[in-house]
């Protein structure tokens, strides 16, 4: 079985994270914003697993476990986030994140 170059794994993770960030920062649709956040979380998961493979040893178990927790918590966070989005949308009839600008004042 061919070992994958660990650098490639980390580069892929970085690319995914940047994509997620770009989505979150540029799209105005709230659903895209949530998707961007999920993408960033999974990029971090990938990075964890990649490092766990690269530095195999006693501590590497943590690298395998953390993504499991992150997935569970991200699922919960997504639930809450979607629920909030639905509430907001019902309130405003808009998916545009720029419409919610009252927090400033």
């Amino acid at each position, binding site marked *: 079985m061919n070992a994958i170059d660990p650098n490639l794994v980390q580069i892929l993770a970085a690319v995914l994270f940047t994509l997620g*960030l770009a989505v979150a*920062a540029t799209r105005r649709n709230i659903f895209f914003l949530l998707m961007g956040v999920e993408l960033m979380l999974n990029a971090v998961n990938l990075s964890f697993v990649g490092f766990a493979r690269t530095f195999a040893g006693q501590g590497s178990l943590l690298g395998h476990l953390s993504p499991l927790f992150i997935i569970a918590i991200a699922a919960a966070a997504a639930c809450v986030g979607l629920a909030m989005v639905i509430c907001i949308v019902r309130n405003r009839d808009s998916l545009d*994140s*720029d419409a919610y*600008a*009252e927090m*400033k004042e």
Partner: protein
Amino acid sequence: MYPLWLIPVLPLLGFAVNGLLSLGSAGSRRGPSRGFVAAFAVAMPFLSFLVTVGATALIWNSGQAIPAQRLWEWLPLGVDGLAFGLQFDRLTALMLLFITGIGTLIHLYSVGYMREDRGFARFMAYLNLFMASMIILVLGDSLPVTFLGWEGVGLCSYLLIGFWHQDHANNDAARKAFVINRIGDLGFLLGAFCLWVAMGSEASLRYSDIAVFFQGDAGRALAGTPLIVAACALIFLGCTGKSAQLPLVTWLPDAMAGPTPVSALIHAATMVTSGIYLLARLSDVFVLSPQVMTAITLIGCATALYGAIAGMVQWDIKKVLAYSTVSQLGFMFMAVGVGAFDVALYHVFTHAFFKATLFLGAGSVIHALHHEQDMRRMGGLAKAMPVTYSSMWFGWFAIIGLPLGSGFMSKDLILERLWVAGPLGQGIFLIALLTALLTAIYMSRLMYYVFWSPSRVPAETRAHLHEAPFVMAAPVLVLGFASMVAGSVWFGLIERLNGFEVWLKPVLSAAQNVVASAHLPDPAAAPHDHGSLAWVVALCGVTAAVLGWIIARLLFKRGPKQSEPAPLAGFAATWTNGLDRIYDLLIVRPLQALAWVVARVIDQALLTGVLKGIGEIAGFLGEGYATCQRSRLRVSVALSLIGVVAVTAYLLMPVLSKAA
């Protein structure tokens, strides 16, 4: 063990019962049963009086004081702690006998005077509380216990002056008495601290310890040191507050706003004499500071003269008596100042009788005239109120010093002691004699205006004129009689008749010997012409009294010129308010100015400025930051990204520079 604790506890019980009754019946229109309240309130001081008589009999028979009784541990002071202790020596016996005796009579009188008042139970409760406090004051075996009573009587004085609290003037008078007394109380406390420091930190402030210390060599060595002088001066300040001497005098005339029995009990017979009691109790300390003793004489003299002159121009019958009290207290302080503690106490004793008589008699007059206090609406009352008139006649006879009245005995002894106290004393003697003359004039003026001049009572009041009821007339008559015979316990003109002096000798002789040896370096060369001097002084006193009476007869026989009361004007109005104006100018105004500076400059300008400035800065920074905070989510994300990049770059900088 003789139950000394019963003496203060009995009136305290009366206070508790009547106080609870008064509180419990607050909702009812009529209040609790008058009969029960009256019986209980009068019985308690009377039982105290009986216990006091028993204790006095005990020390009469055994010839020595009842040892101090320590009731419970109280303060961690001295070697073995200071207990809440009571002591009953000859001085206590003297004070307690007339406090509880006259107190009981005045309670009885109050039953008649205050019967119709809605607050009857409350009034009797306060009077009982006053009795308990006053008893603790004189029965305490140490300065702290006395201070407890000292504060207690001040509180009761405040409560009773402002008893008719619906009237704002009464509340003002009560507050004034309270505040001025507080100044004196501060002096008492600081003086006690000084004394404690002087005696060393092992001292306990028990009177027995104070006497032993200051009669011993260690204490005598402290004579005239600044610490002792400060202690004496501060304690004397306390006494001027409680006993209404210059400069803390003005509260006493205003205190006449209270019901008349209060004026008789608290502001004439008992509380105001507690200053003299304290000076006598601490006589061993005071004789070690001749400067303060001189100051006491001078202040007493000035106060006596001030009170007498002020008494001349009053129209309110109670105000005349109030200024007369001030003046008589001045006499007592004069005597204390020349080291004649026993004579001062003798005057306290006789004054308690005749001044209580005069006040209660005035109360009967006011009662009969439906609360009329202005002497311009009185006159010719001798026939309508024969019992009151004859009682007040006894009181008048005693206070102006006509021969064989009690005031004659004590006042002449004061004059005599002043005369033998060196050149200063002889100067004071002349002023005291002038004051005695003025006393005779203003007291005779009162008698002329109230009893001897043609009647100016309005017709509708005259129809209802009545002699005081029995419960009021009887105590006044008893006191009037007592003010005639109370002087028989010490007759200065006859050598053997000095039971009073002998009685107090064990308590006061040590201090008085110190003063006497200062005046006369050789005790053997005591004035051998004592007898003839006494006769000359007595002649002077009687001349002053008779002359004052004659002058008053010439001036006031026909009654006041205008019968309709007009507001005081000219000298009469400004004289007695002069002191208030001086206080206003010297103390109140500067304090107000200071308060203004603190409020406006320090508080509003400085403190508020700094605090507001801090708030402004935070607000300003917040405003600036808020402009950076874009509300759009995308921008926020982008900004936080920039922040993360910046932080990461900063953290990586050392690594990168090393790599480079």
